[in-house]
């Protein structure tokens, strides 16, 4: 994932953009790395086994890249979760340089969400939205009408997203990220009514309650996945799409 001497700036969640710019200028040679993502880093054993897989990625990645990480910009506000705040404090206690940011106030600023509504494969949509946090992507996008919906955060296991047809729109926190409003609960709870939507949450994440509630409210289907999606979870999604 990283050359042994490559210098890195770690992030998770959606840090305050102005803080990211400040740190980018301070460490011009460093590459940003999203610690949320599963890079198959060795298990650090710091967090409990039964815990949010994304938080385990953050801690495991940080410890695996400790020598390369000059600084970590940690999302600790409502745009992430309490676990993000605890993780920031654990890593600081372990000797990491951690800058905490809260990205919760946006005023009237609202970016359009063309990636969420595009005809890109769902996995590409989600990756593009998340990559945009670090570096604005130059994408040629074709908009499409939604036939299906995916609501939620970027999963630890991105492969099961291949089940979804390309005319699946993105909702939930991921769309909030594209809109530049990651703690906008009203936008997070928005879906297009009548569109069959899969409401996804990582197992052990607080967003499970929102996903389950919204799935019932909008006649969608609720799924939670811990590490990788089981065959039965994949089959549920397939069936939901086929029978819809």
């Amino acid at each position, binding site marked *: 994932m990283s050359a042994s001497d490559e210098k890195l700036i770690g992030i998770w969640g959606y840090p305050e953009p102005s803080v990211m710019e400040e740190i980018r200028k301070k460490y011009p040679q460093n590459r940003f790395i999203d610690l949320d993502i599963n890079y198959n880093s060795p298990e650090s054993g710091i967090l409990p086994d039964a815990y949010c897989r994304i938080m385990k990625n953050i801690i495991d990645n940080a410890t695996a890249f400790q020598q390369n990480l000059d600084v970590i910009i940690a999302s600790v506000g409502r745009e992430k979760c309490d676990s993000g705040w605890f993780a920031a404090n654990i890593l600081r206690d372990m000797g990491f340089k951690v800058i905490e940011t809260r990205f919760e106030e946006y005023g009237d600023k609202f970016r359009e969400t063309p990636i969420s509504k595009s005809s890109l494969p769902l996995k590409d949509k989600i990756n593009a939205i998340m990559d945009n946090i670090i570096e604005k992507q130059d994408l040629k996008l074709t908009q499409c009408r939604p036939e299906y919906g995916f609501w939620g955060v970027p999963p630890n296991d991105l492969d099961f997203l291949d089940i979804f047809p390309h005319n699946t729109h993105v909702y939930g926190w991921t769309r909030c990220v594209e809109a530049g409003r990651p703690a906008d609960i009203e936008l997070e709870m928005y879906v297009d009514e009548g569109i069959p939507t899969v409401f996804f949450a990582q197992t052990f994440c607080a967003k499970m309650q929102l996903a389950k509630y919204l799935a019932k409210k909008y*006649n969608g*289907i609720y799924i939670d996945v811990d590490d990788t999606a*089981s*065959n*039965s*979870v*994949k*089959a*549920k999604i*397939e*069936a*939901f799409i*086929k*029978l*819809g």
Partner: protein
Amino acid sequence: MAKLYADAGTTWSKVLEIYENEKELETSPLLKIDDLSAYAVFENGKEYSDHTGNRHKGRTFLLPSKIFSSVPVNFDGATGHMVKQRINPDGKYHNEIVALAFGARKKVKNLENATVIDIGSRDLKWVKFENGKYRDLDWNGNCGSVTGATVEMLCKFYNIDLAALTPQREKISVTCGVFAMEKIMDNIASDIPAEIAVARYIHGIAYNAWVFAGKPEKVYLSGGFCLNSCFVESLKFYCDVTPLGRFILIEGLY
């Protein structure tokens, strides 16, 4: 030309061969199976109609999955994880929930407002229909696991005749066969006859299946538990039950 369909379960696999005349069976790929007739299941008055309504002759088999997986036969339609790689080039694979939904819709006239539950040896799945349309589904492969397999093992271990079990009002509340074992042993250690303990466990499975499916008023039951009267009667403590037999998923394949 005869066509083959399979529902490959973890412990038992169901196979249907449909054909136009008996001559076609002389070259059936199923003849690779030793003592094939020993696995035949006769269903009196059974008609085999495809999804367009065309009628066919047919024969069905219930094979231990160990034997099923060891015989190199490909299928024109199949469901079940283990059979994904054994589909003919122009054949069709459906996952189990899709096969269950298609099969139930095909076999049940006026499937207006009901839930179809399939209980396998290691999992539990259901599909709910409202006003004749698919409405919701779920599949529990973890916490509902090893239920059917546990009943089979317990009956063998305690030499219990499943058909002779009497449904019990009391239940052993369990979500999975592994956790159930401890409570069944507790019952037996407290001088409760094994037949009663196992019947309580079966009641527990029925109750959990009903709760997992969202406490429906009307249930169509699919899978091996259809043949378990203790289970069917236990489920009737909670809802109206119509057993469909163990070939419903196959019905969803053609």
